[in-house]
């Protein structure tokens, strides 16, 4: 999106579609950064996520044993 400024054209603007724009932003690239820094909040979040996934796995195993009749409900 560019602005044209010159005399009578002070209020003229050139609008360019993102796909046609040749002026590219310098995007924030993770290429040279490596892994995310393990701050306390990152560490705690990933620990909670692991715990959550563990609970889900236990539930799935429980369901498999239940369907196999291991708990004698059926």
């Amino acid at each position: 999106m560019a602005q044209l400024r010159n005399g009578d054209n002070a209020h003229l603007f050139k609008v360019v579609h993102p796909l046609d724009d040749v002026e590219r932003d310098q995007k924030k690239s993770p290429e040279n950064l490596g892994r995310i820094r393990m701050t306390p909040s990152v560490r705690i979040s990933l620990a909670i996520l692991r715990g959550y996934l563990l609970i889900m796995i236990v539930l799935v195993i429980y369901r498999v044993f239940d369907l196999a009749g291991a708990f004698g409900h059926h």
Partner: protein
Amino acid sequence: MTEINTSPAKGIVVRGRWLRNLLTYLMVFGPGLIVMEADNDAGAVSTYVQAGAQYGTTLLWLMLLLLPITYFVQEMVARLGIATGQGHAAMIFKRFGRWWGIFSLFDLLLVNFLTLVTEFAGISLAFSAMGVSPYESVPIAAGLLIAMVMTGSYCRWEWFTICLCLLDLIWFGLAWATQTNTGQVIRDTVIPQVPPGGVTPDLVFLVIGIVGTTIAPWQLFFQQSCVADKKLRFSDLKWARLDTFIGACFTVLVGGAMMLVGNLGFQHHINFTDPAQLAGALVPFLGQGGRIAILLLMCNAAILGATAISLASAWAWSEVMGWPHSLRRSVRQSPGFYAVYALCVCAAAGLVLIPNAPLQTIIIGVQVLAGVILPSAIIFLQLLLNDRELLGDEFVNKPWNNVINWTVIVVLFILSLILAAQVLAPELFPKTSS
């Protein structure tokens, strides 16, 4: 006429800021509307109509509550996509390592595939109600889905998909035709209430179903990749936010309209097992036109959902594999990307055509896997949006963003856990009334 910001790019010259803003918005517009409206897929039609049929208009307030939640989640995705120009799957791989990357990717691909099967089941169901055999409707739908992405033009795909989204405006006509009391609709939308009968397990799981249907894991991956494919610029962020907000409003309004159609079944005590059956039962009130409209809108919802879900899978897989992955490229230039898309579509369509396919097991699988992947995907999103090293001060979350997002994440964790526990260990819960 001299250009200060010299750009040999194509463009349109307009007079005045207002026209410039409008035109820029129209050029940026697309990913936000598509991701939101594609979420009103076959499963969503079924859930919203069921909510209306079971509880009338008393759950409309939930849609209003979900509006800011869905907007805030998707705004983060759009911001991350614009800032990095890369997809969500690639970002998880690069910042959280191979283990979390592979976990997220395979979980996504699996839940997407199973959801895709339910989309084709919806198409099969709706066309069967119109007397068309699934052996005709499903392959034709699969062919259309493949053809619509293989034009080698992002813009062609986007405009076609936006047209499909706008077809959902017909839901408003159907909602209007139900002649539901406007005052009642407004009151039930703005005043949260527990439906008559109190908080039952049925109600809890329907509410979870509505939340799960409004915020789906594939949406995070889809919108970020879509924004990256469209090459949105930093300066486009405010318009991408507006696009996302308008998309969120539209999808919530369409969801509300679906509830009002279901409410007609509630008012006339109509029992049904799927929206196609309800469409037939509503003929005395909406006419044959209404029946056909509901059935075709079911198909439209399934097609929209199927293209977005398949693209989310194809983008994610190709990003991680390092393959060319853009709708701007031809099939010859991005063979792997299009092959993944076509494979997802064909496999899901083929599975639906197998006699006695375990569709019920697949639906349960979708619920459980979505419960696993949604909270984890949102955690990664939240952590990435707090990654100051990557995003800098310009794009990183503000403190108020974090308060809202962590609240949303905690609620989603609890709801997902309850849903998964109910599906996997139903005997731990009180018996439902039905």
